[in-house]
């Protein structure tokens, strides 16, 4: 018997398929479209005017003052849900 380990039989790797020129074109076109969409979205969002929370600009350009925003109300307790027992004061 021989002590030498027989060499493993050589495995031939499968031949690499090179992308065809048509696949390169499709991949490139998809990347260009995604990039163009991202750029246009960012541009539109940056151009949108930002108003202060208490101000709204009317179509005529005047700034209208709104009442100060109210804090969100917590979920009503059973007592407070009895809206019929609340009083609403207003001019009449």
């Amino acid at each position: 018997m021989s002590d030498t380990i027989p060499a493993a039989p050589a495995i031939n790797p499968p031949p690499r398929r090179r992308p065809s020129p048509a696949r390169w074109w499709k991949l490139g076109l998809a990347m260009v479209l995604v990039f163009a969409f991202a750029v246009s979205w960012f541009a539109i969002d940056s151009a949108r005017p930002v108003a202060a929370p208490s101000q709204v600009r009317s179509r005529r350009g005047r700034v209208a003052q709104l009442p100060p925003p109210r804090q969100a109300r917590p979920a009503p307790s059973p007592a407070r849900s009895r809206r019929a027992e609340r009083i609403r004061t207003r001019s009449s």
Partner: protein
Amino acid sequence: MSAFRAMGTDVRVVTPGLGPTREAAVTRRVAAVFDESERRFSRFLPESELARLNRATGPTPVSAPMLAALDRARAYVDLTRGLFDPTIGSSLDAAGYDRSFAPGALDRPTRPPPGAPAGFDQVVVDAAAGTVSRPPGVRLDLGGFIKGHTADRAARLLPEVAAVDAGGDAVLRGAGPDGDGWLVDVEDPADAARVVLTLRVRDAAVATSAPNRRRWLVAGAEQHHLIDPRTGLAGASDLAQVTVIARTAELADVLAKTAFFLGATAGRRFLERLPAVAGVLVRHAGSVEVVGDVDVVDE
């Protein structure tokens, strides 16, 4: 909660401790008080005592409730230095408010003739003889003042914890349904669907004055019902709305109108000088100022 219609507004009666049957019985008694008051003090019902007084010439016999109302009115004229004055009736007619208000009902293409200049010092009340004299053309209007007084009277018929709410002029008895005070939402005059803040009130009355609801068109120009006695014209103010909390709805109504005509700075000082009075001033710009000692709910 029960409701009925009187004095051109919806009146609600809230009695948390009563069942439906007893609440309905209480509401009928409250409605009777409003009905009796309207038949006596209405400017628009032709056979009311006030309408007959406004048509009369010379010393005119009047009822004890009318004498008492005019006596209280004179005290308020003095308190407000004439910014409350029942002789604005002629000016209201001249502004086109000569019938019960409804949206569009007061619109007209031409302006009515101007009212005669008037002041309450021209009205002579002879308590001993039980008569009232006024110059021709001077007509009395007791509108919101009497509505508040009627709510005060009606509230005496209610249980210890109950409320009567006459279109925003309300008398609140006791500590409310949950014992912590009645929750009173102050409506936003710029948007009736919103509330500028909520108060917690016990054993007191509230009233609100603003020109935002009773508006109409005369010869294409907008009018409203808050007549400034100093000019006889619809009053202008840097305030969009005033709410007053006081001992009675009658007092709260008078003070709310007065503070409105005074404007934000003088109106605040005026309310601060009065004992047991608080207020909420809303400017046209939307800012809200709380005057005096009142519990604002943090919601």
